[in-house]
């Protein structure tokens, strides 16, 4: 075996901020501006670190982004250029390299924050292009807490510069960042995105970071970076608790771990670096050699494919009428609910397919990726044959996804694999090609081999290639079930790859499908299938997997199996929870009894048609609930319980309607949105739920919605009523702008507004047609706009 050249540890610098504070930097002052006012001081600090032995120094540009520099009188490129010049000058003749230092933007990204991914990308783009022009040797994104922000930064640097990219994130002792990102997710996402080195800085001292560094070592083959604080901060003042000598002692351990880049963060000074260099100079950092596990992730959930992992199949319109309708109507709550149900049932990964005639796949894929990721932490598998949709989805995906799929056709491989490589995803290869699905296991194996070969040619590691040997319907092609199973074993044993199968396909056209599906699944698992694509809400199938994991030792001491069935047998008897007697559907609604509402709706549909159930039973019940709420006889929880029960009733009715092939019931379309800049959406969601109860089709645009999105949707969907919500005085202006944009667009619609800080007077002032105090009033307004006769 060829031996890699030995490499010794490279030393980074220590803190800049600490040094500046020692020189009297005021709290709240922007350190980057000292490049102009105290140029010599900055250069001196760089020189001190170089004298202490630093081989890479970080420029004084941690907060040099457009948001943080706003109002300072200086532009990004101006500050970056100056700071790089100073660092370059300090390095002259030393052979040391200059790293463009980039910290977090300072605002949180969507979905919890309001900064969009594209905005973050542009902000980073501005910094890194300026840094490259100014002559930086590399860029380092440090002290990052949000993996999504890191992804925007890395993409900007990759797409817009040729600079090598270092990334360090900052963790708490529990191994998570403030936004919940774990060490493993950082490692697998960034290795996928192709950064040059990855590591940890700030927050903790070298002692506390060490166990996290060990976890990182197990999950990356990239060179590692550690920049620890000088211990933990004292609660009294800004001092840190370990000496330069102690710091260096702790850092020795990192040498043994094979860390390639070592330096200091808050509280460290040139003395710390000098001690560090003394202790570790000449130490060889061994390259990581242990094979990495296949892994996909979201920031807070890393799924290692080291045991059977279930891929949920339900986010797919094929053969699912309600999902088709939801995609066409942008009924996101329905889709999110499906995602959540699968995750709760134990799916480890969720397949997402939005392809359906009439759907703009390239627009909907990223939209749904973002929305699903805002409520579910389960990793996603983007399922499409449309490269634009795949790229759009991969770009905004937070973490490492799976692409479903490529096949043996060269054109497909050449289109999709570059995307897989660029965004660092895993990929499913279907064992078919332009001539169709081969009938023998051997031929399918050959295609798998070719896909693997091509993937590696594009730089995709084999651990990220997952092979689907294709399930064919046994009622149509009976001999194929065994060929599929045989192919699974061949791929597993001869190529060592993980395999995927859309298991449910096996049983189409046969009675008692679950039995066939379950039996085939068990056999396939036995042959080495480890990524079954199934419906996790069928408990029989999930039970079979739980049992398999016990029998194959994946579930050690049967812990999870026991837990699974303890939960089921330990469930309280539902019948005892029920109140003694529910007479009819209206009563079930008024009392907020979901299960009863469902059962009673089915009963009512036996002697009435769908519309009659809605008009004669549901709506009057909801009206009574609304009246009682208004009179303070019942309160918000009961109102919403009633709404939830009505939703159940509606669900039954909708299923019936779509089964009959009748057009959907809609009394009219209403847009709901929390305005740009605002993220308080619970009030809006309450109103949406109640409006849906009354049979209106609500297009929920979510929170932090740009005015243009509201206008475009209103025009495209011909919406007569728009509801806007804002909770803060600071975002009322944004509400006003949205109304203005709607009016200026010439689109004829009524606008209702609501939210805690609004008053009827203010609503009128900003040009709204109606002020809705609560959900009840919103319904009254809708009745007015769409006409009572309709209601």
């Amino acid at each position, binding site marked *: 075996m060829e031996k890699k050249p030995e490499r010794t540890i490279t030393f980074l610098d220590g803190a800049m901020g600490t040094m500046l504070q020692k020189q009297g930097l*005021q709290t709240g002052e922007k350190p980057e501006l000292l490049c102009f006012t105290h140029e010599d001081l900055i250069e001196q600090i760089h020189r001190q670190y170089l004298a202490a032995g630093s081989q890479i120094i970080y420029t004084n540009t941690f907060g040099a982004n457009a948001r943080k520099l706003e109002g300072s009188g200086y532009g990004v490129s101006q500050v970056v250029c100056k700071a790089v010049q100073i660092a370059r000058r300090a390095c002259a003749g030393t052979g040391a390299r200059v790293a463009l230092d980039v910290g977090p933007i300072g605002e949180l990204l969507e979905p919890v924050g309001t900064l969009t991914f594209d905005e973050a990308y542009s902000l980073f783009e501005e910094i890194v292009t300026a840094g490259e022009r100014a002559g930086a040797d590399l860029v380092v994104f440090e*002290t990052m807490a949000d993996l999504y922000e890191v992804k925007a930064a890395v993409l900007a640097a990759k797409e817009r510069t040729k600079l090598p990219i270092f990334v360090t994130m900052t963790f708490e002792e529990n191994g998570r960042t403030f936004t919940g990102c774990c060490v493993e997710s950082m490692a697998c996402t960034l290795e996928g995105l192709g950064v040059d080195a990855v590591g940890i800085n700030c927050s903790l001292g070298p002692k506390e970071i060490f166990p996290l560094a060990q976890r990182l070592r197990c999950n990356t083959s990239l060179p590692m970076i550690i920049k620890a604080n000088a211990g933990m901060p004292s609660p009294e003042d800004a001092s840190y608790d370990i000496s330069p000598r102690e710091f260096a002692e702790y850092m020795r351990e990192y040498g043994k771990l094979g860390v390639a880049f070592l330096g200091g963060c808050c509280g460290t000074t040139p003395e710390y670096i000098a001690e560090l260099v003394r202790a570790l100079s000449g130490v060889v950092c061994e390259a990581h050699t242990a094979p990495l596990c296949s892994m996909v992730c979201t920031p807070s959930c890393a799924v290692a494919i080291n045991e059977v992992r279930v891929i949920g199949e339900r986010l797919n319109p094929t053969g699912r009428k309600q999902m088709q309708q939801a995609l066409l109507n942008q009924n996101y*709550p329905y889709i999110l*609910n499906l995602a*959540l149900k699968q995750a709760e049932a134990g799916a480890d990964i969720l397949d997402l397919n939005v392809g359906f005639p009439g759907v703009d796949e390239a627009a909907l894929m990223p939209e749904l990726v973002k929305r699903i990721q805002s409520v*579910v932490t389960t990793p996603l598998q983007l399922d499409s044959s449309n490269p634009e949709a795949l790229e759009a989805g991969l770009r905004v995906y937070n973490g490492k996804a799976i692409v479903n799929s490529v096949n043996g056709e060269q054109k497909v491989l050449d289109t999709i694999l570059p995307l897989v490589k660029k965004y660092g995803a895993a990929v499913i290869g279907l064992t078919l090609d332009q001539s169709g699905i081969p009938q023998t296991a051997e031929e399918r194996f050959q295609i798998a081999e070719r896909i693997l070969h091509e993937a590696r040619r594009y730089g995709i590691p084999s651990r990220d290639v997952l092979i689907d040997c294709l399930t064919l319907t046994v009622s149509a092609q009976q001999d194929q079930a065994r060929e599929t199973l045989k192919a699974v074993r061949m791929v597993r044993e001869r190529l060592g790859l993980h395999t995927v199968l859309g298991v449910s396909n096996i049983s189409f056209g046969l009675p008692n499908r679950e039995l066939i599906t379950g039996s085939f699944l068990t056999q396939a698992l036995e042959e080495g299938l480890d990524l079954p694509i199934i419906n996790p809400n069928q408990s029989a199938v999930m039970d079979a997997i739980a049992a398999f994991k016990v029998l194959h030792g994946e579930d050690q001491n049967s812990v999870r199996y026991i837990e699974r069935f303890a939960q089921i047998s330990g469930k309280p008897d539902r019948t005892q929870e029920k109140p003694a007697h529910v007479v009819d559907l209206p009563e079930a609604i008024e009392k907020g009894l979901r299960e009863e509402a469902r059962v009673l709706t089915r009963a009512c549909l036996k002697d009435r048609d769908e519309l009659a159930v809605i008009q004669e039973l549901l709506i009057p019940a909801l009206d009574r609930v609304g009246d009682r709420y208004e009179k303070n006889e019942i309160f918000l929880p009961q109102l919403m319980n009633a709404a939830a029960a009505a939703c159940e009733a509606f669900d039954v009715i909708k299923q019936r309607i779509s089964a009959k092939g009748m057009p959907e019931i809609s009394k009219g379309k209403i847009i709901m949105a929390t305005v740009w800049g605002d993220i308080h959406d619970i009030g809006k969601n309450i109103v949406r739920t109640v409006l849906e109860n009354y049979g209106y089709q609500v297009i929920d645009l979510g929170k932090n919605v740009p005015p243009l999105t509201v206008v475009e949707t209103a025009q495209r969907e011909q919406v007569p009523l728009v509801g806007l919500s804002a909770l803060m005085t600071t975002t009322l202006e944004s509400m006003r702008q949205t109304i203005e944009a709607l009016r200026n667009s010439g689109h004829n619609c009524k606008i209702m507004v609501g939210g805690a800080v609004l008053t009827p007077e203010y609503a009128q002032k900003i040009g709204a047609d109606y002020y809705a105090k609560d959900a009840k009033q919103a319904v009254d307004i809708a009745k007015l706009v769409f006409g009572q006769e309709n209601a």
Partner: protein
Amino acid sequence: MEKTELAIDRMEVLRYLGYRGHPASGDVMVEIERAAREILQKATPRYICRTFDLERKAEGLWLAGTQFQLEGSAIAEHLASCDQCVLLAATLGYEIEVLLSRTQVAHMTRAIVMDCCASSAIEFFCDRIETLERKRQEDKGHYLTGRFSPGYGDFPLSVQRKFCDILDTQRKIGLYVSQSGLLIPRKSVTAILGISGCRQSGKKRGCAACSRAATCQYRKDGIHCGEEA
């Protein structure tokens, strides 16, 4: 940044839910218990406090050694007898936001109750910090005023950014400010507490100093938020 135990005041939750003294049914109480449990389990409460000297200049009140002016007459009045003040920022953390969004998908009622529980929890958390800080000051022979937050009276919400920058809340406790001035995570509080050599009256901050004075539902109904109708 120390950890402090959290709790949730059930009566306060009912008040947030609009009950105002009306009895709540058993199932609502069960829902509150469940929501409270989940909030307490998922919360990662963190806070940061820092003491500053106050500097009175011709053009107004400043935090000494910083570029932060405390604008408005309301905060000046609040700190009238003080030479120093404590800046406090506290948050229940990121995970609560995700929990609230997730719960809204399938259980709107539960989400509403959780939201109210989280509001109560952050208030409780701030009360605890205030008590600790009060004790610390009293040990030194000083007295602490109540909490005064951006948005009260004429102390503008637009100071949130500077406030959080000065405490470095993003790095220290994961508290961000959006471009529109919102605290993120939402279940977070920033406040100023004055430090004075003389005993404080302990009188309650009135409606005039409240950011909701113009739109408050309680005021519209002719009562106060501490009261039960």
